Each structure stands twice: as structure tokens, then as C-alpha cells.
């Protein structure tokens, strides 16, 4: 059993944990991220709407409002520093009845109070001029040009890789079971051994209440809120160009319809409270609900082109706001809890905030050699014909296409496996380079991707898993 010492231990390798890790890596501290799965971005961060919210939704003065607007402002620069995809495509909140226009105006005013720039209210016809597939029933919409879409995998993995390049250690397949207060800080007992840390940062998503409640008398409760989504083929990706929300109204709370940064069309989510913190099973009723609701605002959605459906969990805290900062009765224990929507957008800002709090408490000084940038995995499809031809001459692996639907080459897959915090599972590869993410959903490429993964990590095909240990693909060799 291992015995390890760190100044700071972050529980959770999701977008929030990785953002904190990356920001904390700016300081002279020894840091680890403890992740129970085999890879970062394996929980809430992997299955969500992938939206950069403008920030008009949250109650003015709330932490959600503050960090959403800050996070939105940071996202553009961050996407350049860490080389992940983000598009500021603007968002629309559709309003379906004259009676609801006051509610739309309220949303506008909330946005102004929260510091969202560029907001305007459009008439139904103006909306339809921008988005020809918006239905005739729409009477008005709130337009937010600062709204955007992001690759949640690219964001999380980019933060993690950069943190790692700056000295943060990542411990995978490591589950924290017990936290004990010690004289110097905390002992985190895991299945793999004990981690001694002076400071603990709780970024455990839907499990954040469990860890908080181990050290504090002031209990919190996270409700697991499940959301089902449908993802449509890239052929449907241009059906709308903005992110289309629906104003909650007579018909209930709507769903969003949005393009993704990769050109698919995403529809969802539903909202069902569940008991199981790993209850990511989709539900027939939830899936049909989101399809029914989606067509309130957007017509002719080609649902026949659905390539996958999935479910994500949101960590809803009873107080309906983020819980950020040092726990009052547990010195040195910091929470980033209750990070539900707009958590993805807020993560970069939360990262800075929590890291600064921890660094201040630790009286840590800033490093001089912090590397601010990280190079993403090269996407040959973004190169010119000539540049791509040159690349293949230099490295012929870029000339072998493994995933035909997404056009992913062997070179990209090898890069995904061999780089900093490389992928160890099929899902890890999928999230990094999209092999298996396309319309055949890995039907053709899975065996070939498995072979490359086995070869590059010196494992057998039987050892290759979809994600965590136990999710082996083949069951034996004949």
C-alpha cells in the first residue's frame, strides 16, 4: 500500500478539479488529483450540454452568476492557451407566448445585473430571420451574443494535461474512502493506500457531499439530477446555428437544441432526480420527452439521424448555489461543491478562485516557470491539403484512417495514447480524438483502435477496457 505526501490533494478529476489543479500548479506546492476512474473527464464533465453560458440565468449576487460571467469571459483566451475547441455562436431563449414576455424581460434584466454584455430582445420574426428552423409559435427571444459552445472533453483534458506538465500528479483508479483530520492536515484513505495532504480540495461532483460530510458537522446534501440527451449526426449539425433555449413557461421547462463544436446537433437534457450517484442510465420516457419538447422551438429536427443517446448527472445542492471555499469547521478543507449548470462555464473561474484561496492559506509563492500553454492533439483535417500531405510524408501514421466516420488517423490515436496523461481506454481515446464518436459508433474502428491501444500500452486485447477496469471488451482469446 502506498503512503504519499502532498501539500494539496484534489478529489475529483472533472473539469472543476482539473481547473483548480491547473491554477494551483502556478504555485510552489506539491499537488495531486485523486480520480476514482481510469481517466479525467469521466463523470459529470463528460456528459452535459457543452455550453458556455452567457450568464443571464443565475440569480444576481449568487456565486453561480459571478463565476458564470467570469468563466464566460475567460473561456476564449483559455481555449487558445490550452488548444481546445470553443465557438462563440450566441444563444437564444425562445418565448412562446405574449404572456411570457415579462418573464423574458426579467431574464434580460437579470442578465444586465449579472454583467452580461450585448443582450437584446428580438421579435419572433427577427429570430426566424437568424434561425430559419425556429417555429412560428415563437413570439420573442432573448439573444445573448456571448453565449457559446465548447468541447467539454478538450477543456477538461487540456486543463489536466497542462496541470500535469506543471508538476501536478494524477492518481487514477484511486477512490477516497475515508478522510481523517490530522495535526498537519488530512489523511485520505484510498483503496491504494493513504495520502497525507495539508490541504484538501473537494471537487468530487455528485460525491462532494459525501466528502464534505466526513469532515464537517454542517452537513450538505447533493441531489443527483439526471439529464438525458440525444446526439444527432453531423448531417443534422447545421439545423440551427445558435444555442436554442426555451423560456420556462406554461408547457414547463424546455430543453435546448444546439450545434456542438464538432458539428453534431445536441438535444436535451431532461431533469430527473435519482438516488444512484452513478445512475447514468437513459430512460425511454425522458428521451421521448426531450424529443417532444425540442420541437416546440425548432421544427423538422431529423430525429432519424440520432446516433447516440446518453445521460449525464448534475450535482444539485439544496441551497441552489455553488458551495465554494474553506469549510468553516474544517480548516484546510476546501469545497467546490454543488457545481451544476453553469458549472462547465464557471470552472475556469472557480479554478482561479479556489487555487488562490488555497495558495493564500498555504502562504505559497508563485512559480516562475509555469507553462501557460498546452498543445492539443493535431487534427489533420484542419490542415490545408498541402500541409496534410507533408505531415503524412513525415509520419505515415497520419495516412492510415482508423475511424472512417470521423476521419481519425492512426497518428492521432497514437498521440492520444502516448502524450501527457494519455488515454488508457477506448472512451479515453474517443474523448481525445473522437475515434468511435461518429455515425457508426465504433462499429468499424473499435477492433482497430483496441489493437493500437494494446500495442502502444503493451497490453493484450483482453486487457483493453471501454473505460474503467471491468469494462473489458473481449472476453477471451480462442
Amino acid at each position, binding site marked *: 500500500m502506498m503512503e504519499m505526501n502532498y501539500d494539496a490533494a484534489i478529489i475529483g478529476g472533472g473539469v472543476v478539479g482539473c481547473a483548480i489543479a491547473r491554477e494551483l500548479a502556478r504555485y510552489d506546492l506539491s499537488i495531486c488529483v485523486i480520480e476514482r476512474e481510469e481517466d479525467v473527464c469521466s463523470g459529470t464533465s463528460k456528459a452535459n450540454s457543452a455550453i458556455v453560458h452567457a450568464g443571464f440565468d443565475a440569480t444576481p449576487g449568487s456565486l453561480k452568476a459571478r463565476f458564470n460571467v467570469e468563466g464566460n469571459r475567460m473561456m476564449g483566451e483559455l481555449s487558445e492557451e490550452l488548444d481546445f475547441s470553443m465557438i462563440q455562436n450566441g444563444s437564444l431563449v425562445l418565448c412562446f407566448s405574449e404572456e411570457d414576455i415579462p418573464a423574458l424581460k426579467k431574464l434580460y434584466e437579470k442578465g444586465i445585473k449579472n454583467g452580461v454584455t450585448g443582450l437584446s430582445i428580438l421579435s419572433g420574426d427577427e429570430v426566424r430571420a437568424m434561425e430559419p428552423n425556429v417555429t412560428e409559435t415563437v413570439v420573442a427571444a432573448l439573444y445573448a451574443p456571448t453565449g457559446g459552445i465548447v468541447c467539454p472533453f478538450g477543456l477538461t483534458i487540456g486543463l489536466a494535461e497542462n496541470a500535469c506538465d506543471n508538476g501536478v500528479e494524477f492518481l487514477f483508479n484511486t477512490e477516497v474512502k475515508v478522510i481523517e483530520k490530522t495535526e498537519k492536515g488530512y489523511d485520505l484513505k484510498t483503496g491504494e493506500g493513504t495520502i497525507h495532504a495539508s490541504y484538501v480540495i473537494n471537487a468530487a461532483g455528485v460525491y462532494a457531499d459525501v466528502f464534505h460530510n466526513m469532515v464537517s458537522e454542517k452537513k450538505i446534501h447533493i441531489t443527483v439530477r439526471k439529464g438525458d440527451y440525444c*446526439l444527432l449526426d453531423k448531417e443534422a449539425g447545421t439545423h440551427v446555428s445558435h444555442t436554442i433555449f426555451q423560456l420556462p413557461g406554461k408547457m414547463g421547462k424546455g430543453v435546448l437544441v444546439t450545434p456542438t463544436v464538432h458539428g453534431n446537433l445536441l438535444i436535451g437534457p431532461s431533469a430527473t432526480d435519482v438516488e444512484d450517484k452513478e445512475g447514468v*442510465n437513459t430512460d*425511454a420516457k425522458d428521451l421521448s420527452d426531450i424529443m417532444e419538447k425540442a420541437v416546440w422551438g425548432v421544427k423538422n429536427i431529423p430525429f*432519424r439521424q440520432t446516433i447516440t443517446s446518453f445521460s449525464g448527472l448534475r450535482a444539485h445542492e439544496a441551497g441552489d448555489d455553488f458551495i465554494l471555499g474553506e469549510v468553516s469547521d474544517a480548516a484546510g478543507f476546501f469545497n467546490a461543491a454543488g457545481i451544476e449548470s453553469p458549472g462547465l462555464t464557471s470552472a475556469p473561474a472557480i479554478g482561479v478562485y479556489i487555487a488562490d484561496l488555497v495558495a493564500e492559506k498555504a502562504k505559497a509563492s508563485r512559480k516562475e516557470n509555469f507553462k501557460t500553454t498546452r498543445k492539443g492533439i493535431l487534427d489533420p483535417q484542419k490542415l490545408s491539403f498541402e500541409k496534410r500531405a507533408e505531415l503524412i510524408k513525415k509520419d505515415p501514421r497520419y*495516412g492510415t484512417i482508423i475511424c472512417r466516420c470521423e476521419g481519425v488517423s492512426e497518428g492521432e490515436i497514437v498521440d492520444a495514447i502516448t502524450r501527457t496523461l494519455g488515454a488508457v481506454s477506448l472512451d479515453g481515446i474517443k474523448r481525445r480524438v473522437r475515434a468511435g464518436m461518429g455515425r*457508426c459508433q*465504433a462499429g468499424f474502428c473499435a477492433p482497430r483502435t483496441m489493437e493500437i491501444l494494446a500495442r502502444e500500452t503493451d497490453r493484450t486485447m483482453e486487457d483493453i477496457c471501454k473505460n474503467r477496469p471491468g469494462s473489458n471488451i473481449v*472476453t*477471451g*482469446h480462442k
Partner: protein
Amino acid sequence: MTEHDIVIIGGGPAGLAAAVAAKKAGITDILILERESCLGGILNQCIHNGFGLHTFKEELTGPEYAARYIEMAESENIPYKLNTMVLDISKDKEVTVINREDGLSTIKAKAIILAMGCRERPRGALNIPGYRPAGIYSAGTAQRLMNIEGFSVGKEVVILGSGDIGLIMARRMTLEGAKVKVVAELMPYSGGLKRNIVQCLDDYGIPLKLSHTVINIEGKDRVTGITLAQVDENRKPIPGTEEYYSCDTLLLSVGLIPENELSRGAGVRMSQVTSGPVVGDQLETSSEGIFACGNVLHVHDLVDYVSEEAALAGTSAAAYVKAACEKKAAHTVELSAENGVRYTVPQMIDLENMEDKVTVRFRVADVYKDRFISVYYDDVRVSHKKKKVLAPGEMEQVVLKKDSFKDYPELKRIVVCTEVE
């Protein structure tokens, strides 16, 4: 940029048969582009027998059938490139190609034959609810892992969909020692060939549950079980009919989709019904000089028909190249699929320039007993043939002879339909 008379995209049974026919029709400058590491396509993983009964009058396995055509192509010295993926076909027949040796290059073709085959519909297309663990395969993926790579993919199996691949995998997995508990089919009839139901399920005592579907998948790491339910006439699960099956593997054989991404890029007009290009009797698409055949055109049940159809595409492309790509005067008549006939391929016949006869293939929309297949030239019924059973899983055909059109100089439309009497 290199140039070739005919570029064939796909080195499976369709591409190979098209190449051999084009060569025999006198075109020597042919190039086959194949994305896999060997010719033969999906046949290479179909190690069961039953191929070639029509073409070779004997029962071959998939690899054996493929080998016959590979030998023909090689003895005709037809060049091919393996591990070569086509990224794009432009409207003016420029093909962008990628591989390790040549890198990225462009090939200009006088004629193109599309022979890219099809892919399986994934779980997501059906929105099957539940968890997303390991152990869910499309039947073809499992087939490849087992038959080419030599792995076992599961011990206790449920199969959804009674398409031919699903049926064949039910037998295959049984022979490999797995327990196939049930095959569930959403429709009230099987999507596969009757002979496969008998030889792959009945012979092994594997139950087939028609009008059933998977309504839940359990297992967070690997599949641990699934729930089946009966469906009503609207294909909605009927409450109270749920049945749980423990299993570690779910195979999906829920439909094949022609792989026409490249065709769309080339601006080829597509059929909503077949998901393949709309073609005339020469198997030419709406883009001049681009021909289509095999499963990329419409999903076939027998490879023998693929070869036959592909040979026509090959000779047509050869004729197009030899005629210096010039357009002939035409009298084009549309084929109309009606009353239980879902579609026809071809969708158009050029009565002026057609061969002596044209084979029109189609599928029906439902299982019909004691029905007639009729052909109308405008309002005149010219053919009326009784069939004991018609089923969507079995492709049907009618042959139209050129001289049968002599008496209809003003013909506007050909109707293929089923009739009760």
C-alpha cells in the same frame, strides 16, 4: 494529380465484380481503392457458407466467394490500392485519397463506380434506454472480432434484431460455446432470410421473439442483463410484458445503412427509401459518369445479386468511357413503387438505350401471403405473377425486356406493385 478511366471506390464483392466486368468490356485503365488491408470487403468476416449458389452453382464461404473475384481481378491485372481511404469525391470526378505510401493525393477519373457497402445501425439510432457498458456490439463488429481476430466476445448473449447478420451470429456464438438466450425482433416478422431462421435459430433451439424489443440495458462496467418487452402495433412496449434476461453481451442487428457520405459529397441524388443513390437502368447516378452498385446502392440479401448488379455497373461505366463520355438521346421513364412495394432499383429506365433486359429489384413493406407482383406500363398491366409469400427480408425482382416496350412508344411511367388479385 493522376488520371484513370475508371476509379472504383471499394474492393468488396461489388467493387471487384464491377472491375472485372469493366475490364472485360475493354477498359484497361482501372483503379480499385480499398480502405481495408485486403480485398474482399465484409465477405472476409463471413466465414459461414451459402454464398455463390446463383453465381457459381456451389456453396462457398464468404472468404471463398471473395477469393474467386480477387483471383479474377488479379488475373485481369486490375490495379488496386489497399489501406486507402477516399476522403472526398468532387462533382467533376476528382477523388481525394489518403494512405501511408502516397500520402494525400488527388485522382481524376473519367468514370467512378461507387461500391462502398453499408454499415450497421448503432444502438443510438434506436434510442435503446439503459446503461452504456461494454459488451454491446453491432453484430458485424462481434463477427469481425471473432472470425478475423479470433476473440470471444461474450458468454451469455441476447441478440436484438433478426437481420441476417444477427441470425448468423446467433449460430456462430453458439458454435463457439456461448449461450444465446433469445433473439428479439421489433417487427412482427424477421428481417432475415427464411433459410437463416431455420439454419441458425431453429436448428439450435434458439427462440425468436417477434414483436419484442430491448427496453433496458443493465450493467455499469460490462452488460449484466437486459429487459425485453413485447410491443404493440405501434411498436411501443406493452407494460406488463417485461422479461429480464441475464447476459454479458448484447448483439445488435438492427438494420444496415448504405455508406453514402462520399456520394452526397459528389452531389448524387439520393433515395429516401433505400438511402442509396437514385439510378437508371445502367446504374448511373444523377451525376453523369458516376455509377453505383452493391450495398451502397441498396442493401442486398445475397452477394450473388450484388455481383450481378456490379457487373452491370462495370460494363455501363466502360461504355460511358468508350463513348467518350458523350450524352445520348434518351427516353427516360420513371419506375414507381406502389401498394406494398417499398422501392425499386433502378428508379429509372432509359427505353432508348437500355440493354435487352433490365432486372428491377425491390423489397416489399410487410409480409404478404398469396399476393401478385404486377407491372404496369402506364395503365396496362403487362405482368402479373403470384407469390405464396412476400417478406421484407427477401429481395424480389422482375425482369423487363426491351422489346416489351415496343408497343408503348409514349410510355410515361412503369409501376411495380403488389396486388391481392
